[in-house]
């Protein structure tokens, strides 16, 4: 009992921070999504409870639907397909348990380190780096293209969504690679040896022995990178502004809350982001039939 009381006392500071800065704002965010709360205008003076009005409005809001479409394409393209499978491929090629590890060691370390450095780049720094790379007038990639094939491409104008998908893949693959690497290395070597003894080819070994064991890692990675990618805002806003082709749900929420000061409506957008992330997490969990 004494130990339990001590533990409770030790937990209080952390729980205070959690309660004050995470739980309370979340509860308040849910509450104001049912009001017309704003920071300017008559609604700032007299906010009122409007029930589900924001929710009805949002479902017929063309700009919101556009942002959902953009976010979905962005998440599928950059996270689910890009980061996840690229990370898995890099991990499969570079994990230490590979028989040819000694031959590929330095290349593997270089690839891993590069990937990791991309992942830890701060968001505003990466947006400046990619602006320097893809810009039509001064971009390094365009300088190379002009030197080789006498062509300059206005990437941000003609391929806005592709540009931000590529940037996000570059940024986030490091995490997927790390997670997959530890997943690969957690598979007991005896299982692989047993499969080889039973006559499995390399492909069969992966298909029937290794990949089923990685379902847990697959689900966890998908859940995390989906939630994170739905939350990406900074570099897209910095590079693209509020362009229709690349307005993600987070950017739309920011625009509503901090450009137009309609914080009630902005909160409603955030609630939808939460609902979508929760639904997708449950779907991944069910689809992959992850068991404890």
């Amino acid at each position, binding site marked *: 009992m004494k130990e339990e009381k001590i533990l409770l006392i030790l937990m209080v500071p952390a729980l205070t921070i959690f309660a004050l800065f995470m739980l309370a704002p979340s509860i308040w965010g849910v509450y104001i999504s049912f009001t017309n709360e704003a920071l300017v205008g008559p609604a*700032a003076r007299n906010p009122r409870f409007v029930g589900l009005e924001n929710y009805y409005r949002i479902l017929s809001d063309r700009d919101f639907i556009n942002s959902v479409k953009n976010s979905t394409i962005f998440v599928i393209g950059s996270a689910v397909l890009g980061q996840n499978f690229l990370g898995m491929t890099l991990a499969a090629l570079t994990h230490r348990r590979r028989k040819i590890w000694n031959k590929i060691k330095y290349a593997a370390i270089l690839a891993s380190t590069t990937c990791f450095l991309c992942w830890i780049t701060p968001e505003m720094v990466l947006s400046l780096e990619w602006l320097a790379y893809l810009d039509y007038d001064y971009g390094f990639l365009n300088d190379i293209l002009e030197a080789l094939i006498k062509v300059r491409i206005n990437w941000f104008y003609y391929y806005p969504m592709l540009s931000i998908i590529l940037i996000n893949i570059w940024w986030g693959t490091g995490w997927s690679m790390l997670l997959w690497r530890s997943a690969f290395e957690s598979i007991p070597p005896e299982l692989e040896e047993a499969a080889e003894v039973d006559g499995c080819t390399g492909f069969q070994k992966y298909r029937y022995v290794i990949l089923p064991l990685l379902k847990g890692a697959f689900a966890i990675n998908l859940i995390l990178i989906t939630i994170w990618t739905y939350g990406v805002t900074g570099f897209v806003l910095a590079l693209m502004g509020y362009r229709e082709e690349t307005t993600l749900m987070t950017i739309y929420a920011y625009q509503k809350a901090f450009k137009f000061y309609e914080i009630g409506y902005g909160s409603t957008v955030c609630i939808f982001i939460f609902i979508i992330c929760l639904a997708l997490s449950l779907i991944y969990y069910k689809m992959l039939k992850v068991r404890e």
Partner: protein
Amino acid sequence: MILVPERLYIYLIVGIIIGLVIGVIIGYLAAPPKAAPGVTTTVTTTVTKPPAVKEVTMCYPTWWADYWYWKEVLIPEFEGYMARQGKYVKIKIVEYPSPDEPYRDKLITDMKAGTAPDIVLIDSFWVPALATAGYLLDITDLVEKWDDWKEFYDSMKAMSGWGGRIYSVVLSTDVRPLYYRKDIFIAAGIIKPGEKWVPKSLDEILDVARKIKAWAEKEGYEIYPIALKAGVLGGEATTMQGFYMVLLAYGGRLYDFKTGKWIAKSTPLLKTLEFYYKIYIEEKLSVPPEFWLTGKPIDKAHELLRDGKLAIFCTWDGVWFDTANPAHRWYITKNFKGESATRDEVLDYTIMPGPEGKPATISGGWAIAIYAKAKERGTVDIAWEFIKFVMSKKAWIRRWIIFGGGLPPRKDVPEDPLYKGRVDEYTLWRVKNLLPYTTFRPGLPEYMKVSELVQKATEKILRGEKPEDVLEWYKSELTRIVGPDKVEELP
């Protein structure tokens, strides 16, 4: 095992509740203390302590160049002035170091939270949005008793208020001229050396642009005859210095102040979109449309003007000084042929021609106001005295002599010998030719959304959509955003 699992949830909930209670207590203790009532202590022997000093707070955007002047000169002078009247006051500056949008966000958030300073400096076009939110004190009765108020331009008075009431006093203002490269104009035979170009209509501007295009193509120069700010990336500059300037030139507006409705469709709106379409798509008298759609188009456009690759451009009045400032990236050093030249040799300014030959221009500017909660704090009198002090003619002129820049909101300033003796030709031209005719944006809460709609409309033109279709789109989107009862159509 320290904890029984089923008790863990109970401990977590109890811990969160304790955490919330502690948090509320900390929040209460950390809240700014209410102003303590003044206490006068009189020692009846040989020493008398002075009466308590009344403190009034003022926000200041520390990124302004004249911060030191307010802090080291104006405020101490004011405090001395009040002391001589037996009132002991202290103006305490609350620094707001973030510029532009973050400044606005922080100030608005502080106002909402009830913690903003007593005296606030705001962009004048925020007045309606802040006044309708109840953040600004209605100072109509105060200004009407102020003798100096009659010296303010009518447009400045209108910019200071909303709904017939006054909520601020404009500190200084600006206007938008039309710039043109006179070296190109002379070489193309549009004007003679020493002559000033004064266009009478937008059609004349288009004619001149066509002549410059023909001349440049014939001579092999890569020069864009004209550019207007366009696209969403240009932000408010697209609306104010591009679209709105042409709209005003055609005699149109975005908002009808008489009816209190947004104008969803009108001939001037259509003509403005047609003007954009002509210069960007139909006749290609300007930069390629995609110029405005990526990167930093505003910067690039000014660089084209600097380098003599752009002949006619509408932008804000401060650019005249930037182009002569060696430290500025738009500093002009060459003519359009690349030969050494100064700004005065190659650049000139003129009016955007409006209806009936009058100039069309639009103004912004910052204003000084009193936060509504100053009334509860009992600081309104001191705040108002401070505003009158800094906005007196003498104080305004002295600040202008040291820092230059903005235009006076007062009509009596241009007549003052101190001002007349020092003012440069360009500023005098602006004061006499543009300031009396200026107007301002309707800074209602929904203005930002309408402004974005205008930017998107110009972007649709850049992408080749027809003006009539874009106007229909603008009408339906505007109606959706502000509501059908807040829009009207005009001939």
